[in-house]
């Protein structure tokens, strides 16, 4: 069965995470994605690793290999006239262009919706940029952590009230890129639906900052509703909702509803705690957390993670292990669901990768090919698809255009 999006032809002009993750979501559902990289160095993700044996190599970056499955790869310098002409030919033949070229560089190379749309009126063009295509920060420089900060989530994490001297703490990895990518994918999918139903194309302007600001849980509203600044320094109003150390690792304790607390104290063999005045409800436990924390930690430190996790889950209490990578790779649950997939790529070798984020019953997520090596499909795409004669391709290669 072909993937749900197997009729879509996509061109990606993407670096690092946001645009590549966006087009990966389409590619993994069957879309035909051609990824364009700069000749020579290629996508910056190729320099970031992790690398097998810690030896940097452009064809062995784990981040790049994960983000670019199921795509064909070409090299093209669109800042040259010849390069831009080839780019326009590719886009003229595509349904969707997904890019994360920053506005200042879009201006420099002449990448504009109007220009591309004139040749292909059905085109959906998605621009994923740090701060959006207009506004005073349009030309601001940004790396991934910049946007995790500017979007308002980073300030929520860190040492908390006990360690106010510690800075707000970023979440691991390139989370801004992933969020820009998946929010961009939702908007692009909507535009593709319009294209299918009505035959019209359009420009989709996705701001990574706004993608993050859209998921501030309840904290943004504390200002318009209560004139309160919410940061990492606030005391948690309810407890226990906290990480604790067991004999063999960390477990996240989570009693939000009263029945969960009662079940937990029974598992601990301390049912009388449920009747203690100072622990009587979640707010009391929050207020008296300094006392409760010590008591809980003493008991929890005698337990093992998996055993306690399973015991409380049997009573419908939502604790969870603080999973290490090893825990994830050996999880019996993830194994039974077949989550991890093995991908062999000629240079990087065979490794296990995260697999399908969702299971579609009829149009499955599918791994058809590993990430392309730099320029792997130049002949197929430029020669085969666009019909450029091989002598001309050699000429362009000599000029450094491809």
């Amino acid at each position, binding site marked *: 069965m072909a993937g*749900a*999006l197997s009729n879509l032809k996509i061109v990606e002009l993407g670096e690092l995470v946001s645009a590549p993750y966006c087009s990966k979501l389409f590619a993994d559902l069957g879309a035909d994605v051609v990824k364009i990289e700069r000749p020579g160095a290629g996508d910056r993700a190729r320099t970031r690793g992790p690398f097998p044996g810690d030896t940097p190599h452009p064809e062995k970056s*784990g981040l790049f290999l994960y983000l670019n499955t199921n795509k064909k790869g070409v090299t093209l310098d669109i800042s040259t006239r010849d390069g831009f002409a080839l780019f326009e030919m590719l886009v003229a033949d595509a349904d969707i262009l997904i890019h994360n070229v920053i506005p200042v560089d879009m201006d420099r190379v002449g990448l504009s919706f109007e220009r591309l749309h004139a040749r292909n009126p059905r085109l959906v063009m998605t621009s994923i940029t740090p701060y959006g295509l207009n506004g*005073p*920060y349009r030309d601001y*420089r940004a*790396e991934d*952590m*910049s946007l995790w*900060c500017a979007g*308002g989530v*980073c300030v929520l*994490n860190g*040492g908390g009230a006990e360690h106010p001297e510690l*800075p707000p*703490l*970023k*979440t*691991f*990895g*390139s989370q801004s890129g992933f*969020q820009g990518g998946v*929010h961009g994918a*939702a*908007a692009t999918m*909507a*535009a*593709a*639906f*319009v294209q*299918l139903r009505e035959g019209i194309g*359009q*420009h989709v302007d996705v*701001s990574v900052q706004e993608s993050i600001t*859209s*998921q501030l849980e309840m904290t*943004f*509203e*504390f200002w*318009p*509703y*209560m004139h309160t*600044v919410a940061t990492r320094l606030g005391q948690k109003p309810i407890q226990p909702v906290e*990480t604790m150390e067991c004999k063999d690792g*960390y477990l996240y304790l*989570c009693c939000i509803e009263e029945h969960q607390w009662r079940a937990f104290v029974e598992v601990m063999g301390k049912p009388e705690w449920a009747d203690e005045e100072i622990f009587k409800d979640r707010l009391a436990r929050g207020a008296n957390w300094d006392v409760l924390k010590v008591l809980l930690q003493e008991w929890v430190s005698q337990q093992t993670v998996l055993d306690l996790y399973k015991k409380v*889950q049997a009573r419908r209490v*939502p604790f*969870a292990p603080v*999973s290490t*990578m090893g825990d*994830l790779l050996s999880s019996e649950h993830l194994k*039974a669901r077949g989550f991890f997939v093995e991908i062999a790529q000629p240079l990087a070798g065979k*490794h*296990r990768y995260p697999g399908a*984020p969702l299971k*579609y*019953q*009829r*149009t499955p997520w599918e791994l058809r090919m590993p990430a392309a090596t730099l320029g792997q499909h130049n002949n197929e795409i430029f020669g085969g698809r666009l019909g450029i004669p091989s002598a001309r391709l050699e000429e362009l290669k000599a000029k450094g255009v491809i």
Partner: protein
Amino acid sequence: MAKPPLAGIRICDFTWVWAGPYCTLQLAHLGADVIRIETKTRPCVTRMLPPWPDGKFDSLNKSGYFNQYNQGKRSLSLNFKHPEAKEIAWRLIKQSDVVVNNFAAGVIEKMGFGYEAVKKVKPEIVMISLSGYGDTGPYKDYVAYGPAQVPLSGLSSLTGYKGWPPMHAGFSYADPNAGVHGAFAIMAALYHRQRRGEGQYIDMSQWECAMGLLAEGILEYTMNGREPERNGNRDPWMAPHGIFRCLDLPEKITDLTIDQWVSIICADDAEWARLASAIGKPELANDLRFKTLAARKHNEDELESIITAWTSARRVADTVAELQAAKVAAAACADNKYIYEDSNLNARHYFVERAHPEVGTRRHCGMPWRLSESACEVKAAAPCLGQHTEEVLTGLLGYSKSEFEALKEKGALD
């Protein structure tokens, strides 16, 4: 402008808390008619959480949390203890294109609205469950709450200050992540249905959906057999890469001092040279301690002290403006007040203010995208509980006014 992308698409929305409502919020933003099925006996948890305009919980309709993630949806309140409530839900399903829920696996089946049952009535339906652990596997019946899914995903063990225990992300990150992936998946399935006429079922595990986000950590392990070390705000390939203290907020809002921080990153030596000049120490660009990435990584503590000495005497907004003028990637570590006032978000008309009968007109976050041809707008403020029950029953589901009154009398409507 053309009509919104999902005009004419109706969503039967059994979701609650955050993951599911975040999913259907995206669909509402894109023009779908989202009808949330609610009950007064077990209202959505977020209706009972802060913030509230008067600082206290005295109504199910005043939570800023609920009102943020349910903008533009309709609320239908049913009492499922009553058999006729089920009939009402079935009539809605027959008129819907998509059914969404984020209960634990098996719950929607117990309610009688599992995919097999729904498919019999409406074969072309698209249905998705955004459960914590997915529909299959030995932990399928485990319960998942937002905050616990971050450590479960693996993100916590990778996040933290160097040498410290694992930390959280500071918010229930796996929830909105699942929600937006779910919205994408629903639209991909609608796209397929439009072409082939077939509906389908989608099984989402919030846990699995979050693991792509830590691919770098997982691959470090599968490539090198090693757990990555927690390393605070630093980055192996860039230095400086940190969050630095600025002057505290001068205004007194409460008794608390509100601290302010700035993120500063230099991706290469040229950016470092520009930063060195901007902080009045151009000579540091060629200082052997800092000239190359390797040197800056080696002397990163010292590098960070020098930057802190400069930032700590400045207001955050000025710091960002000065450094951006020098083409350095600086950003405010914005809190909710800063976001509210952020000039870029305001200039882009990102915020939405719609009248609400109980909280008045308050600012909420809007859509993170702009479509050039499809008109997308937040149609209305979040609904009060049951606000659209009569409208949906008599307008959409074909009940007469007297049938509606009779159902109300019998207690089928909550």
